[in-house]
């Protein structure tokens, strides 16, 4: 925590926090628009199985831009950034562990579906 004093080095003399320069704001905005267009364009290309991962990678890039610039994380206290990363660590743990045994009850669920639903035949 001793490095807390250093992050104010680029601070303005009058401010409580970093003031975002307009070019960075506009640049972030344009990058977000570009990646939105890109992800829609890529979705319509036939890339097979990996397109979900490409879409998620682009979404993560966009989320990173929003967090870094719009949410000022780049100029925020290291403690807040650390907590932000911790939070995603816990999300990853949560989803990862939940996924581990999600197949466990599939046969029972499948049997239940098949017993209770009826696919109406199309003539």
């Amino acid at each position, binding site marked *: 925590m001793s490095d*807390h*004093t250093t992050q*104010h080095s680029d601070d303005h*003399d*009058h*401010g*409580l*926090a970093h*003031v*975002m320069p*307009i070019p960075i*704001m*506009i640049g*972030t*905005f344009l990058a*977000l*628009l570009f990646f*939105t267009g890109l*992800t*829609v364009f890529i*979705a*319509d290309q*036939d890339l097979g199985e990996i*397109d*979900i991962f490409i*879409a*998620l990678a*682009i*979404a993560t890039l966009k*989320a990173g831009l*929003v967090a870094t*610039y*719009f*949410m*000022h994380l780049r100029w*925020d*206290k290291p*403690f*807040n950034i650390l*907590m*932000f990363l911790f*939070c*995603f660590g*816990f*999300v990853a743990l*949560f*989803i990862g562990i*939940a*996924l581990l045994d*999600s*197949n466990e009850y599939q046969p029972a669920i499948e049997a239940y*579906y*098949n017993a*209770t*639903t*009826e*696919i*109406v035949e*199309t*003539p």
Partner: protein
Amino acid sequence: MSAAVDHQDQAHHAGDDHHGHSPFQAHHFETMQQQFDSGKLGIWLFLFTEILMFSGLFCAYIIYRYNHPEIFLYAHKQLNTTLGATNTVVLIISSLTMAWAVRAAQLNQKKLLIWLLSATLALAGVFLVIKYFEYTHKFDLGLYTGRENVMYQLQHPADFQELHEEVEENLAKQAEEKKEAEAHAVSEAEAVDAHPSEEHGDEHAAAHDSHGHDGHGGPEQFLDAPRNTQIFFGIYYMMTGLHGFHIVAGMIAIGWLLSRSIRGDFSSEYFGPVDYVGLYWHLVDLIWIYLFPLLYLIRS
């Protein structure tokens, strides 16, 4: 943590504490800097709980998609990518105006702040209006959650006799029309061409092939749905609904900021609330950035 903040504030403000006492400085804070940093820590903690709450829904999504990809492949056709992309752009623009509003508050630009907050509020409204049209279109087709969903009802004909009869009637009618159409194969082809292909040109043709009808209209278009497709709509409504609820909460918060900024509360000395609501608003945008590809851009 608070000890560290105290220490840093004393270091930072030791020399330049010449501002006097702001009317917005709560008595339990030593300095405006301490008050601002505490508020910031508070809003971040709140946002982390928000991320964890949404992650529950993302977890449901991932597990269900992992186990039943066919449901997502089938059901995503009911979502309109153009409207989803438009809403993404609307939220990105509103994020820009919000980020700019924080800057305006920090630089004492009162008029600009009021203007930018109004723009953010209006864009949030646009988002909700588009969402409203998306939802009502699905409701018209009978795509609700759970038992109310027409796909569920089609797969449980014993429980939903009326729907079953309607579907059989429609199918019989279409079979007749098809026979007639086959007699006039050439004019039929022209008629198909003349049809405006509405939202999804590709599926239009596919539906035409598999059912021998035009793909729009009655519940019989969902006869080929995989089992439990209604669960996709449950996930869709819960994720976008919870997100929409956050948009409404954000609009209330921005409206509050707007009234305070008109009153002239905010300045370079005191802009914490604008910054905190801004962070919240960006998080709502951030969640939509994930929702959009996960729900609207499913292709394989």
